[in-house]
């Protein structure tokens, strides 16, 4: 297998991005709950037992030591606040919030501190902090472990927000995030972690603020992020049989949003469905839909459509959970209303 053909999981891509940046820049550190595991047991040969609850960080503590890969107590407001303070004083921390749902106990360091510190100090401070967090439903963990919530971060001025849809973009966006001088929230959908893709060996950045056209088409624009990009792709294939040629946009960055790519597409196709696994109110779908309804209005051939999760907590039961998440069938059904 040549280097070009190398295929790895999203989990491995995340590991590589952090590893490469930690090698390159000694100010990069990693901290979070069980990002190593077995803390304090190095002498017994039990270190690095977990590498994170989702095992993305496996081996990093072994390579970089417990000074740079720090397990934390269950103290999210404590260690995220510490990450802010470390970032503001010269380190470049990568902090993990295991499930984005836990933001309920630690939004403050991200919102009132990290996001605002530069502004509140009149530009004297910067906070080069990366927050990695896991989003999304699909693994049977129910209401308190399955939300998206990226709209919260997107709402807050001062935060950048990226949402990769596969291993390649995970590596490129995480590298860019770690190198960025602003706080960046890196939201990774759990169901993507095990998925494989060709990923270059060497370090590379995928630019924050840039969407991509995942599929070109002329009749309809489907817009997705995280897992719903795949949902859109699937729907686009099915829609071929309906005689509809769909363009699919993978947002990748939610803040800043690549307005131009979205608008250019919709202006050409005249029809749009925004697909978002988040809750329907004040969410990502409403955000992108309202952008289109303002700035591409004159080119629209029909209403601006959205497919989202229902206005309900994420259910446990597998059948309900599956129904909760937007499906290609849902997307097709809504898309066909536009023709």
């Amino acid at each position, binding site marked *: 297998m040549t280097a070009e053909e190398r295929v790895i999981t999203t989990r491995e891509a995340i590991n590589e991005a952090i590893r490469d940046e930690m090698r390159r820049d000694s100010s990069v550190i990693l901290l979070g*709950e*069980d990002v190593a*595991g*077995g*803390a*304090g*047991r190095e002498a*017994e040969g*039990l270190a690095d*037992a*977990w590498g994170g*609850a989702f095992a993305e960080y496996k081996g990093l503590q072994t390579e970089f030591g417990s000074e740079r890969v720090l*397990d*934390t*107590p*269950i*103290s*999210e*407001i*404590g260690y995220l606040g510490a990450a802010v303070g470390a970032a503001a004083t010269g380190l470049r921390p990568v902090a993990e919030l295991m499930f984005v*749902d*836990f933001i*309920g*106990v630690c939004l403050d360091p991200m919102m009132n501190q990290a996001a605002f510190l530069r502004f509140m100090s009149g530009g004297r401070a910067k906070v080069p902090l990366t927050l990695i967090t896991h989003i999304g439903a699909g693994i*049977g*963990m*129910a*209401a*308190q*472990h399955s939300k998206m919530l990226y709209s919260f971060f997107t709402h807050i001025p001062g935060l950048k927000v990226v949402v990769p849809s596969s291993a390649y973009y995970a590596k490129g966006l995480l590298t860019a995030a770690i190198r960025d001088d602003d706080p960046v929230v890196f939201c990774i959908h759990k169901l993507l972690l095990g998925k494989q893709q060709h990923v270059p060996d060497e370090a590379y950045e995928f630019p924050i603020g840039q969407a991509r056209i995942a599929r070109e088409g002329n009749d309809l624009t489907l817009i997705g992020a995280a897992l719903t990009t795949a949902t859109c792709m699937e729907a686009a294939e099915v829609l071929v049989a309906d005689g509809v040629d769909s363009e699919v946009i993978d947002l990748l960055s939610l803040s800043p949003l690549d307005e131009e790519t979205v608008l250019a597409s919709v202006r050409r196709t005249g029809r749009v469905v925004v697909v978002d696994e988040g809750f329907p109110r004040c969410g990502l779908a409403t955000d992108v839909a309202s952008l289109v309804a303002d700035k591409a209005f004159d080119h629209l051939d029909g209403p601006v459509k959205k497919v989202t999760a*229902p*206005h*309900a*907590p994420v*259910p*446990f*039961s*597998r*059948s*309900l959970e599956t*129904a*909760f998440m937007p499906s290609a069938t849902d997307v097709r059904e809504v898309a066909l209303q536009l023709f």
Partner: protein
Amino acid sequence: MSMAKARQPSPQPSRKQLLEFYESMALIRAFEERFVALVTQGKLVGTGHLCVGQEAVAAGVCGALEEDDYVTSTHRGHGHCLAKGVDPNEMMAELFGKTTGTSKGKGGSMHIADFRKGMLGANGIVGAGMPIACGAGLTAKLTKSGRVAVSFFGDGAANIGSFHEALNLASVWNLPVVFVCENNRYGEATPVEYALAADHVADRAVAYRMPGVIADGQDVVDVYAKAREAVDHARAGEGPVLLECETYRYYGHFLGDAAGYRTAEEVESFRSRDCLILLAERLRRDHEVGENQLDGIRAEMEARLDEAFAFAEASDDPALDELTTDVYVSYP
């Protein structure tokens, strides 16, 4: 015990009570092991946080409670639910995501609750149950219902802000709440020695002007005695208590965790002080209970689980429109 005032000497549990503890612990053990078996056999897809090894804490503490007392639990909540009297059929159905489950299949393992039994819920957010227990205690205090609230939490949870805020608040408001720490030596893969900057969780009680007590969490009698004293203290209006129970979980953090952060010897050393074995010894020694009788209890519990499994399996999945029910009591 460092309670402010001396309470009545804690009653020695009777033979009958001890057998009830045994039954309670055997039920929890059977429930958890059945769950593991079902997952292993592929009859049930999913995972959960098992409390095998810690049964004495649930049984001993809930044994000290009245039926209408309140309990808040954690992600590791099956044992607390069973000990508080939640129906194993409904619990098993919940794990199967069936409409007959405690939460109609909408909650799952981390959200089993039964308000009719005072079980205010397992909780997927570490530490979240402690303030909620303060609220239940406040209700009890204001309505003079005489009830007490118990909040279970882990050693890892002792480092989260809500622990601090809840214990201080309970003390400031003199609430009838007993905070029960199940110190099983780990929060996920992190040893308590690393994460807790104190020798014992109970050492933190002085920071809130409340009694801090340590019990042997493998010995249901010790748990019961100290829980009983703490509950009596709270019920008498003398304020909250922090009770730490030293225990151990045999499985990993969740079903599937290989637990590579601890040695086999460590696990063995705790297994040798298994709560069911210790209680069986006591029953044989002090109460002339024969092995047969204990085997019988365990067999009964297995049968109970056969029933629960059959019930769960025979139940329906929730209808798809359940996706948007129970979001509000009323939505105009």
